[in-house]
């Protein structure tokens, strides 16, 4: 078993020999830094690169720290990008818990990209095994996927995996630091380690004398680290599971946090870009004569498929870019939306079969002769559009490039910048920044390539490139377009047959092709949210078909289940209604999966399922497991004379362990708002090869006045640690559609729902 990818069970005393944590790749160790010590991992396999290269000697080239202590202070490295999930605070809390540090006693730094910070938890989701399957085959395949992640050096933040990945690694790092500091105190005082305690950043002697860690750092640096450490029993936790004031909350509430877009350097210039609005189409011609003469414009550069304007102010760069006229080539995909849908519709064929994921009973026999219920469901392209537009600051000189940007995959950003500038990878330095949201958008790297190209052409000059909102919207690779053609039967008041056929463009394949590689085998994400439903339907089949890439698509918060769970859960609801059964009771009757039952029963209790809501009101329920986290949601709507009002949402999620309850609730609510808002009114469409939605007025999602009351319950009974950034998203849309049906009798089978019904 691979202890680095498998979160520990919550057994009372978890003995964690740090050396075994990552026996494939890591050893815990320490190194000397100026006047102090750093604790972290040595890679024992092929080193990728060394993020501390500038500070350390060449013989220590593979060291990656989590904790640095010097006489001046303590720094915790929190390598997952903070895209708004509070993950920097969470990671710091995990280290601080074991190290006996209080908030306020340390600084945090995101570190620099390094393969040693790679995210092992993410890889576990790229292979098709049920989440609770830890059998030998599942484990070994997970390991292959792990290897792929390591090769990519992703250090990525996605798939809600930050908590999972960090949970053991970072606590162990904290414990190793603590025990080594105690050892240093023993060497200094002669008092045996068993008589020493630690609290608030100090080793405490039996007579209550405190020796601050910062004063022991120099001594600790001379010791080999104590790696035989015992992680704390959860009952002793001071920080984990308690309300904590997030480290970034004051800066984020006072306008004092510096995001990537806010960076400022002396002598910096500002860049705007115009890239072909037909994605991937060539720039055939342009006229920049007007732009050249505009105030503040310093240079006009040709970049791949577009033009960049360099100016002395962002707005001047935007204005000049708008003043350039272009002739663009043809889009390498069908120019109009109808053709995209037609291609998806043509994909339910043997030739395009991606995989039959499950088949219980005999679906074909059950469908012949019975009264068959059939439907067609659609889920459109949808944009990510985090509120902070994409940006990057770049400086390229002959021997080196420095890049400041907010990325979910800084290792890939580094690689792409190296390719564009022609510099060796180790000469490209990436400084990951706080992001104003991402939702998958910052896994992409086109903006990094554009910035690198600008830097390459403007050597020695620091430049901040900012996308205008319109440029960002019209080059945002949206969520996959998807369609389902399900069939089913009911008998004696029960669901008898469910035959789900789903055709979609694969976001993973699209992304991999942009990286110049491909993934072998079927794409689990096309089926995720449908094939893994824990229902024992007598005849149950889930089949996916791969639509060849049309326009490029990309991972969008929750990825596959954001479309597949909508299809699967709404169609199941149709069957249940056709059978004349109760949507909650029939789902419960169909499953003996303890976790599914637990979240469904919890949400039924919370919503008082079965009680009357009165006329023109209705409830809908949906359940999905996303990236290993089972979530059930009940939505209550009111069909007012002016349209649908969403009144309440109840959420129950089985998450294993909640690190920060406030942050947890906030993110579950945010996930629900995200799922509902986009289902209500968002889609991206193409005409003449171009995205038709350039700003939020035509891709609005939820506004505050539409936001329901959202009541959240996190259940902590499972032994695993699970993420929560994405799992609340997939059940939201089907629960809403099911509630609308309950309130109005109208079955909506296409997102966005406002094509079929009004919302107030």
């Amino acid at each position: 078993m691979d202890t680095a990818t498998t979160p520990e069970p919550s057994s009372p005393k978890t003995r964690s020999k740090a050396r075994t944590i990552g026996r494939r790749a890591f050893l815990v160790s320490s190194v000397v830094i100026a006047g102090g010590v750093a604790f972290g991992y040595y890679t024992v396999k092929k080193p990728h690169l060394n993020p501390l290269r500038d500070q350390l000697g060449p013989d220590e080239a593979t060291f990656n720290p989590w904790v640095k202590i010097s006489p001046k202070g303590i720094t915790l490295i929190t390598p997952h990008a903070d895209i708004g999930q509070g993950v920097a605070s969470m990671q710091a809390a995990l280290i601080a818990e074991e190290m006996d540090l209080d908030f306020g006693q340390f600084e945090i730094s995101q570190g620099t990209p390094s393969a040693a910070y790679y995210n092992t938890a993410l890889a576990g989701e790229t292979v098709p095994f049920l989440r609770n399957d830890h059998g030998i085959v599942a484990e070994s395949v997970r390991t292959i996927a792990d290897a792929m992640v390591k090769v990519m050096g992703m250090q990525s933040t996605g798939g809600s995996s930050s908590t999972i990945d960090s949970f053991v690694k970072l606590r162990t790092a904290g414990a190793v630091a603590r025990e080594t500091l105690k050892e240093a105190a023993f060497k200094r005082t002669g008092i045996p380690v068993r008589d020493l305690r630690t609290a608030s950043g100090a080793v405490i002697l039996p007579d209550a004398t405190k020796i601050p860690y910062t004063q022991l750092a120099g001594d600790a640096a001379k010791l080999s680290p104590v790696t035989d450490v015992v992680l704390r029993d959860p009952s002793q936790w001071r920080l984990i599971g308690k309300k904590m004031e997030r480290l970034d909350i004051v800066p984020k509430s006072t306008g004092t946090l510096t995001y990537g877009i806010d960076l400022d350097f002396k002598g910096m210039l500002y860049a705007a870009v115009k890239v072909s609005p037909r994605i991937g189409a060539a720039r055939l011609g342009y006229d920049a004569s007007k732009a050249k003469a505009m105030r503040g414009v310093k240079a006009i550069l040709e970049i791949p498929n577009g033009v960049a304007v360099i100016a002395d102010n962002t707005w001047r760069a935007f204005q000049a870019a708008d003043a350039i006229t272009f002739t663009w080539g043809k889009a390498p995909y069908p120019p109009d939306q109808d053709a995209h849908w037609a291609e998806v519709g043509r994909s339910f064929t043997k030739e395009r079969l991606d995989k039959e994921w499950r088949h219980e009973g005999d679906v074909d026999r059950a469908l012949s002769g019975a009264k068959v219920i059939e439907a067609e469901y659609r889920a459109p392209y949808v944009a990510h559009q985090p509120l902070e537009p994409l940006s990057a600051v770049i400086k390229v000189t002959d021997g080196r490039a420095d890049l400041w940007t907010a990325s979910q995959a800084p290792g890939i950003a580094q690689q792409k910048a190296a390719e564009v500038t022609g510099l060796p990878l180790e000469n490209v330095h990436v400084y990951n920044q706080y992001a104003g949201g991402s939702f998958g958008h910052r896994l992409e790297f086109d903006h990094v390539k554009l910035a690198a190209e600008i830097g390459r052409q403007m050597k020695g000059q620091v430049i901040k490139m900012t996308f205008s909102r319109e440029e960002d919207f019209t080059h945002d690779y949206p969520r996959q377009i998807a369609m389902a053609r399900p069939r089913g039967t009911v008998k004696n008041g029960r669901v008898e047959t469910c035959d789900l056929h789903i055709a979609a463009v694969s976001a993973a394949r699209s992304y991999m092709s942009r990286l110049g590689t491909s993934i072998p085998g079927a794409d689990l994400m096309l089926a995720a949210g449908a094939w893994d439903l824990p229902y024992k339907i007598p005849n149950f089949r889930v089949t996916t078909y791969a639509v060849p890439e049309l326009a490029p698509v990309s991972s969008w918060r929750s990825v596959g289940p954001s479309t597949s769970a909508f299809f699967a859960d709404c169609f199941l609801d149709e069957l249940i209604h056709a059978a004349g059964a109760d949507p909650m009771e029939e789902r419960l009757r169909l499953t003996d999966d303890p976790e599914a039952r637990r979240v469904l029963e919890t949400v039924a209790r919370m919503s008082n399922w079965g009680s009357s809501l009165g006329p023109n009101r209705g409830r809908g329920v949906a359940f999905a497991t996303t990236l290993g986290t089972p979530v059930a949601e009940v939505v209550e709507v009111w069909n007012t004379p002016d349209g649908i009002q969403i009144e309440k949402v109840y959420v129950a999620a089985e998450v294993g362990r909640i690190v920060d309850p406030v942050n947890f609730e906030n993110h579950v609510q945010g996930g629900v708002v995200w799922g509902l808002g986009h289902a209500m009114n968002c889609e991206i469409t193409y005409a003449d090869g171009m995205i038709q939605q350039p700003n939020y007025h035509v891709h609005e999602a939820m506004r505050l006045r539409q936001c329901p009351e959202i009541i959240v319950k996190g259940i902590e009974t499972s032994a695993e640690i699970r993420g929560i950034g994405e799992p609340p998203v997939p059940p939201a849309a089907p629960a809403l559609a099911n509630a609308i049906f309950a309130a109005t009798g109208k079955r909506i089978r296409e997102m966005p729902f406002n094509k079929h019904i009004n919302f107030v």
Partner: protein
Amino acid sequence: MELNVDGTIHVVDVEADMPLLWVLRDELKLKGTKYGCGAGLCGACTVHIKGEAVRSCSISAGDAQNAPITTINGLGTPAARHAVQAAWIEHQVAQCGYCQSGQIMTAAAFLAKTPNPTDAEIDDAMSGNLCRCGTYPRIRAAVKAAATTLSGN
């Protein structure tokens, strides 16, 4: 031209039609005010002009002369927080936080005029500000808490 921002008079040499947002961010280096949409749709750029909540992306520098302008950086500081900021911190509203400068500026201007708002008034006042992270439930709670502090109840 002269701009009176957060109690300081700044002399800037910019086109009269440059949106106030970009004067604040790129000329005066006041980065608390955010660029979200540039078109009056999201509210990330909200500042106060003579106490009114205004979208700084949609008002020109020329039109913002001769009036006191308050940005998030002038509303309060980490050490001396405005009541709305204090409520935002207490309720840990922010996720990515990028919209929150604008949310706080909208809420502060609204509560100055409407000290005892109803739920419906809060919803109306705050619906012009987008939050892509979906922090709306906490925004509602924080506005109510700030209203209580500000009205001394």
